[in-house]
């Protein structure tokens, strides 16, 4: 089997930074990513992007080139186009590239699999024409494709960023329909002091809002009871502010922030805790990113949402720690090198509590109406989940057995938090007590043919 010093899953900012740091200390690194090119979702295809598109996307995006350039060293073996489908506590990882399965083992393993968009289960969210705001960004970054008549709905800084980018692309959104309320802002105020320490992030956000205002994009805040309307595809978004409103459109972009993608860490049975501020589960880890399984690290948004720059710093810390653990740095030297990184990380995270409080997930998506689909794959509704709670389901694994929520190909990525949230509410328990899906391999579907080819006697039989 393939073995490397540091095996990294995910070539986003955390993965790339960890790879560069570890390689510069002399470690051999393998960097797996599902995409053909490094960057993760935040810097998707940053190495390829044409100039005009780069201008639309802005300097925060093109900053990722620096990281991508730093990983072109012989000590770092990129394994692009790799779908990871099984992880073992001994740090062996099974993955597939172009329909061929393989295994690789790291003496240290970094899970840097980033974030997913928080599910926004509203009526009609499964209709064609409804996408995540992140999807619109990916379309723009990778393909130079932008929706012509789109409404952006939800809350959070990314709503303003993608809106501003669409303005620059010449297809401004028809409107922003924002769910955060004045009350949320008031609740966020106690965190304003911290936010001002992270003033750069705040200033960027205000800049995007100003761009949208200049372009005349209407903003509706405090919106509730959102629903996508349309026959067979999205044709309008309706919502209530002071009165019921309806905006005709072809595309609805949903966004209520991002949450850690915990599929890989869950599949290892690692402990996770509910982060009440960010309304999501976070894998337990120490300040270096090491999890409850020694030698297995998390960094970046997958370890708790902090954004690209925080991810990069956390990745470098993992690189340092792994290098020291494998004897490339003295511990004292590691600690000295880490001091400025920890300080910068604290600055990067300073604005988070304010943003988290000011842009919380909407009450509607935390407790969807009974008729709303929560599991897109198996088409299970919020009402179904509440019924399973009445039938004694204390947690999502029982509810999954009763109603198939989380059994589809997405493996619960877009229903897990909602199901936990509904069960917690129905049973009068906390999300922590309610728990989460037990994630099993394959983390992503793999063909039986690929799996069968890994049967050793089978191969011997063939060659005989």
């Amino acid at each position, binding site marked *: 089997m393939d073995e490397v010093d540091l095996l990294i899953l995910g070539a986003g900012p955390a993965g790339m930074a960890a790879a560069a740091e570890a390689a510069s200390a002399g470690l051999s690194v393998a960097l797996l990513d*599902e995409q*053909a090119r490094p960057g993760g*979702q935040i810097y998707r295809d940053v190495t390829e992007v*044409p100039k*005009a*598109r780069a201008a*639309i996307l802005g300097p925060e995006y093109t900053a990722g080139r620096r990281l991508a350039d730093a990983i072109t060293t012989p000590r770092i073996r990129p394994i692009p186009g790799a*779908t990871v489908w099984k992880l073992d506590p001994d740090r062996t990882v099974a993955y597939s590239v172009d*329909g061929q399965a393989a295994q690789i083992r790291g003496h240290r393993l970094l899970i840097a699999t980033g974030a*997913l*968009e928080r599910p926004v289960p509203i009526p009609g969210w*499964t*209709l*064609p*024409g*409804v*996408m*995540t705001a*992140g*999807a619109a960004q*990916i*379309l*723009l970054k*990778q*393909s*130079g*494709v*932008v*929706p*012509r*008549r789109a409404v952006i709905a939800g809350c959070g800084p990314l709503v303003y960023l993608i809106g501003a980018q669409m303005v620059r*692309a*010449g*297809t401004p959104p028809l409107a922003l329909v924002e769910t955060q309320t004045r009350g949320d802002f008031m609740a966020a105020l106690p965190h304003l002091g911290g936010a001002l320490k992270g003033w750069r992030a705040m200033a960027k956000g205000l800049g995007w809002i100003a761009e949208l205002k200049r372009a005349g994009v209407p903003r509706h805040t405090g919106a509730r009871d959102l629903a996508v309307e349309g026959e*067979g*595809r999205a044709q309008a978004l309706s919502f209530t502010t002071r009165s019921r409103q309806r905006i005709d459109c*072809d*595309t609805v972009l949903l966004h209520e922030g991002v949450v850690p*993608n915990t599929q890989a860490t869950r599949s290892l049975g690692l402990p996770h805790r509910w982060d009440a501020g960010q309304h999501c589960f976070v894998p337990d880890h120490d300040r270096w990113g090491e999890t409850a399984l020694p030698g297995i690290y998390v960094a970046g948004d997958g370890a708790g949402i902090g954004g690209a720059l925080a991810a990069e710093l956390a990745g470098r810390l993992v690189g340092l720690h792994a290098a020291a653990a494998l004897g490339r740095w003295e511990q004292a030297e590691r600690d000295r090198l880490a001091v400025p990184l920890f300080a910068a990380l604290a600055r990067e995270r300073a604005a988070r509590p304010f943003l988290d409080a000011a842009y919380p997930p909407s009450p509607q998506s935390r407790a969807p109406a009974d008729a709303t689909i929560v599991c*897109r*794959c*198996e*088409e299970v509704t919020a009402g179904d989940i509440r019924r399973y709670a009445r039938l004694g389901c204390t947690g999502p694994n029982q509810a999954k057995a009763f109603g198939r929520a989380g059994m*589809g*190909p*997405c493996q619960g*990525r*877009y229903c897990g938090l909602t199901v936990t949230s509904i069960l917690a509410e129905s049973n009068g328990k906390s999300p922590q007590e309610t728990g989460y899906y037990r994630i099993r391999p394959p983390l*992503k*579907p793999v*063909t039986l043919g690929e799996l069968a080819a890994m049967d050793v006697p089978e191969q011997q039989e063939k060659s005989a």
Partner: protein
Amino acid sequence: MNDASPFLELEPDAPRVTVRFDGTDYALPEGANLAAALLAAGVRIFRATPVSGAPRAPFCMMGACYDCLVQIDGVTRQACMTRVTDGLVVERAPGKDQKDG
């Protein structure tokens, strides 16, 4: 450029190749993301679900939601994780009706 598409292509002059989707030929940018290219070409519905037959199209564009499923060489694939190549033949993934049939 496809003006009927809900999506605008910023660089419409990219070299094109022919891709067949559900029996119709499309001229798509070579090497492009298949899901993005089909959306830009005006394809609104990618599949019907096996559960209710409801229409679906790309949702996350990052390989996580499995709503952009298509079939290539008899294997279910995510369009958003597939690159456009010349002569690619893409079928719709079987939905409810095919399942029952």
